[in-house]
């Protein structure tokens, strides 16, 4: 009775340690051929300091809505809405890329379309046929003939306080130099050489 149907089933081959192939599921996400990151395993690693030459790519068939924080160079050839931060890296908007986002990056190269304000610490380059609608703050700008731009351009000099340098230290007294004449109760000679 209870086992009747089981008796009717064809006998299963017994293959130890080899799992049966899974039936295709309609909800299984289709594998995207275009990589979204060059990071190992596609995981974002906050400790990774970049500079390794990796470029994360958002392919032209990909749409991303949300915030992106990148610690490697980023190439966007798809649709992007939200915001992008790649403060120490280069962001490239490919010819098929359409970005509706605020952008902060070390360097921005626009070949596609950007709607949003752009802060490029080092430089921004707007190529022929690119379109940028928004306000730009950057240290340097390059605009090719044929590019479309609507907005403002504010050139900001790199902040010298952000460049890594040693804090001013009192000059050490070299042993071979004659000792300075002490001036009792005189303040330290700050700001003087």
């Amino acid at each position, binding site marked *: 009775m209870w086992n009747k149907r089981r008796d009717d089933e064809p006998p299963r081959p017994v293959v130890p340690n080899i799992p049966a192939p899974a039936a295709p599921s309609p909800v299984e996400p289709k594998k995207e051929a275009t990589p979204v990151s060059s990071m190992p395993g596609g995981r974002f690693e906050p400790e990774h300091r970049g500079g390794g030459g990796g470029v994360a790519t958002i392919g032209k068939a990909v749409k991303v809505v949300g915030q992106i924080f990148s610690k490697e160079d980023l190439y966007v050839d798809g649709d992007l809405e939200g915001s992008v931060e790649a403060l120490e890296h280069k962001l490239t908007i490919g010819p098929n890329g359409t970005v509706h986002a605020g952008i902060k990056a070390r360097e921005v190269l626009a070949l596609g379309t950007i709607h949003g304000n752009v802060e490029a610490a080092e430089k921004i380059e707007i190529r022929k046929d690119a379109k940028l609608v928004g306000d730009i703050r950057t240290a340097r*700008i390059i*605009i*090719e*003939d044929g590019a479309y731009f*609507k*907005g*403002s*351009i504010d*050139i900001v000099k790199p902040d010298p306080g952000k460049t890594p340098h040693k804090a001013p230290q009192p000059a050490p007294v070299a042993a071979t130099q004659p000792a300075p004449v002490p001036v009792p109760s005189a303040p330290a000679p700050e700001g003087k050489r």
Partner: protein
Amino acid sequence: MARSSPNEPIVTTRPSRGLDEFFAYIRGQSGLKILDLGGVNQQNVTVITNLGHRLYSEDFLRLLTETFGSDDTADQSNPGQIDYFLRQALDYGEDQIDGVLVWDVLEYLSPALLTAVVDRLHSIMRPKSYLLSFFHSDDKLDSVPRYTFRIQDLAQLHVTQQGSRRPAQLFNNRGLEKLFGRFESVKFFLTRDRLREVIAKS
């Protein structure tokens, strides 16, 4: 001047008294907001930003064509269309702008749109600031050359002439004075290529 064929662009570099006057005003200052209606180009960006100013860029003629079509003066008297165009091309606050490089774009506007644009320019310009605009001195032309203006230096312009365009209206001196009647003063300079360079002080 270099000319290779009738359809090739004609490129000239010439002195510009109007530009010289314009920069005489903004040269000694920094942090001004300068609006360029001629569309973006590297030279203008470099010159303006090197002086320490912020550049606002609008491609006025492109927006004009996008709004009213390529038949330039069609619908340019429609109040709704005019209002839409002003929001697209001159969406700036009152007294926000410290100087405007208008170039020759006003010649392509029909009377109703022209009046609205000049009024808006006057409104967005800070008092005592300057506007530089060009007009053909011959007011009986059927078509006028299409120009692109690039700032070579503070007193010289790099002018590219390619093709021609039908102006909506042309002006004599009296017409220009009337056009800029709301401005505090208007000054004209006649160039060798028969353009009137107009400096208007708001």
